[in-house]
């Protein structure tokens, strides 16, 4: 561990040509993220004190190895508040060969529409890592989003996300476990939003889904706190 850290620093310092360092293979933004940010959160930390980012990505499809990110949204949650002023939102142009993606009907992002200001993937990743910092990542079926991001990071020679991650679908299952009579889709964002009475108006826009997930997160936590019977800590999740 110490050696790895040392190597990382040495190679990091050695690199110097802009985004991608020649020796370590890590771009600067990732090196900074990996070495200067503390991603460890002690399990007994009071949940209200942990910075949280609710994350959601819209992609060209559901194949982590093939499909690409089209849009990424993030909202900060601190305590029991979602701060709309501090948001992350970025769009990527649809890569060649994905224009006829079946997912267009779901997220409604028309390939390369003039409605959005696009950035390139490294910029998105760099901005995202800066926004994430050492926060706890929360998302619905967040494993998919994290895998997509990790694939993208890998494409640009960076390592994986290091933040701790919580899936609101898992949390919902723990609060109301699925039996053989409970189909998996009962833990979809739509079903849960309905169950917890969250309006679904902006579904399938990255930021809209973030917002819905954020409210769901807060509602789930209050129910979990009732079950645990005290203020929540990270290890309760």
């Amino acid at each position, binding site marked *: 561990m110490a050696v790895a850290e040392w190597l990382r620093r040495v190679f990091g310092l050695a690199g110097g040509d802009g985004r991608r360092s020649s020796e370590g293979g890590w771009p600067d933004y990732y090196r900074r993220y990996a070495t200067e940010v503390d991603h460890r959160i002690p399990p007994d930390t009071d949940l209200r004190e942990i910075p949280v980012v609710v994350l959601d990505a819209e992609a060209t499809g559901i194949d982590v190895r093939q499909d690409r990110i089209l849009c990424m949204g993030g909202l900060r949650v601190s305590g029991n508040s*979602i701060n*709309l002023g501090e948001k992350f939102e970025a769009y990527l142009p649809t890569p060649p060969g994905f224009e006829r993606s079946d997912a267009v009907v779901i997220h409604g992002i028309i390939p390369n529409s003039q409605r959005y200001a696009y950035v390139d993937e490294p910029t998105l990743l760099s901005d995202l890592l800066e926004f994430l910092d050492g926060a706890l990542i929360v998302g619905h079926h967040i494993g998919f989003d994290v895998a997509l991001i990790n694939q993208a990071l890998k494409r640009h020679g960076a390592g994986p996300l290091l933040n701790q991650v919580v899936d609101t679908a898992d949390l919902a299952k723990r609060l109301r476990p699925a039996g053989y009579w409970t189909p998996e889709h009962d833990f979809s964002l739509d079903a849960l939003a309905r169950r917890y009475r969250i309006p679904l108006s902006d579904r399938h826009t990255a930021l809209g889904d973030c917002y819905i997930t954020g409210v769901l997160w807060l509602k789930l936590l*209050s129910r979990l706190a009732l079950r645990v019977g005290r203020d929540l800590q990270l290890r309760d999740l």
Partner: protein
Amino acid sequence: MPNQVTYRVYDFLKEIEPFSYLDQESLLRVASRVEVRYQPPGTVVFRPGEPPRDRFFVVKEGVIELYSEDADGQELLVERCGEKDIFGIRPLLADDTYVFLARAVEESLLYAINSEGFRDIIPHHPRVLEYLATSMAGSSRYNLEYRAVQRQRPGAAASREEPDLLTLQSLHRSRDPVVCHANETIMDAAQRMTEQGVGSIIVVDEDHCPIGIITDRDLRRCVATGMVSRKLPVLRIMSSPVSCIPTEATVTDVQIRMLRTGYHHLVQTEDGTDKSRVTGVVSEHDLLLLQGNNPAVVIQEITTARTPAYLRELRDRAERLLSSYLEKEVAIGYITAVMTQINDEIIRKCIKLGLARMQADGLGNPPALFDWLTLGSQGRGEQLLRTDQDNALIFEDVSPAKYNSTKDYFLKLADYVTEHLNEVGYRYCDGDMMASNPKWCLSVSKWKDQFTEWMHENTAENLLNTSIFFDYRGVWGDGSLPDKLTSHIFDELGSNSTRFQASLAMAALQNPSPLTFFRNFVVERSGEHKDQFDLKARAMRPLTDAARVLILQARKGNINNTLKRFEALAKLEPQNARLYEEAAEAYELLIRLRAELGLKRGDNGRFVRPEELTQVQRLLLRNSFNPVKEIQQLLEVRFQLSFLR
């Protein structure tokens, strides 16, 4: 660049005052800085004494209650804030700490508006400032207290029983004026006003000369909104200088002065200037009670009227009187007494006109003693606006041989009377609950049989009839026949009470209390009044039904008015006094609201479109649902209705 979530917040806020006054760009900027706050049930948003952070709140969903603490540390509910209500706006207006405790009653989402950003916007939007300064004053609790104070005023209380005994000399009533000094706190002044039951207090100097005045309105405008701290000296909010009149001024002098100056309060001093000692204060409200549009004059006119057309005109005039009463927030007990007297007088006049026509037709005088009964809300003396007529006729027992001809005479008479009433504006009853219907024009014995049947066979139809006919009141005739009916009812109650009372209580539960109002009105699903809220059926009827069955149970047959019934019940059952008082208060409020809506629209005010209510009216209405629910629970327990259901 605004995103979808910002637009969602924007869409929500743009319907709400004062955000509705902002241009799109400014509001989008406000929306983009909103913090969405989640409050699980029972959690506190802020506490009294806490320094305000740089935000105020709009309820996105759920309910937040604001409490103030009294001297003993007891929590007093000040306000319930539902969807789209704003609270905690104090930090926006004054650098002071929170006065109230705000707590989520149910799971709630709040939009915390960054007041920093909002404050920058105010100078460019004068209407926002105007809104904040004026309409935030509509705190329900304060209005209720204000009315309670009005009710306790000696003038109003006395006139409540006999509204036409108003005379001029009482203007010179020898009551010591309520005063305070300029350096006393607003809180002390308000306290004294409450103790003394007055709507204004005069600020005096060391020589007892007036230097300013504070009225209920000032308190509402400045203090209830949180714009001014209650601990500041009265100097900060008093109106100054005051307009003075000499002690011996006449009503006309007062009227002219008020018209000329536009002041609502005049201070009486020894020599009529502000350089002499204060002797009293006259408000527009006093004047209205004293004289103004004197109901006695209207009643006088009714008795001399010769045609239904002129009666209609007089009833229209009474409506204007009603509207000015409502505007001045005169106590509902007084208003209903006045309007009932006017309605009664019109009914009497119509009967006299009917009798005259019978004479003209050559049918002669009534063949037997009779009493004209008015039913439903007019029977209870609670009718403010003209609704459908509900009436019946009772005549003394006659020999079987004469029964049919006697009945025919009264049916014919009733035809004329109901026709005249219709011309005055009391429309024919859809359900034909009128004295002209052979079913409701009966002799004493037959009426007794009818009531016995209603009380023993508790069908749905009988219960409906019960709810209308049991609130009968004789308005014209011999006067002895209604009492015979009443004593019969109580005899019957003695022999078979439980089941009948239980069914009556059941009827009071048939319209569930409209609690879902917080999110949506319980509106009518279909028919002519689709998407409207039925004020009468959903809020008022449960209260009248409850009052009726409870007063029957208490065997108080002569109390026919919902407010008075609750008043009597509060005395009979001290352990439930609070609930009954709240129920009466809620009922007053509903009567008031219905009259206000009806006057505005020119109908009977029964159905309301949710969107036509102001924020304040919505709040008041919502508060009135609490006692509805509580009283329904009381009935359920007392009459053991859970077994019946």
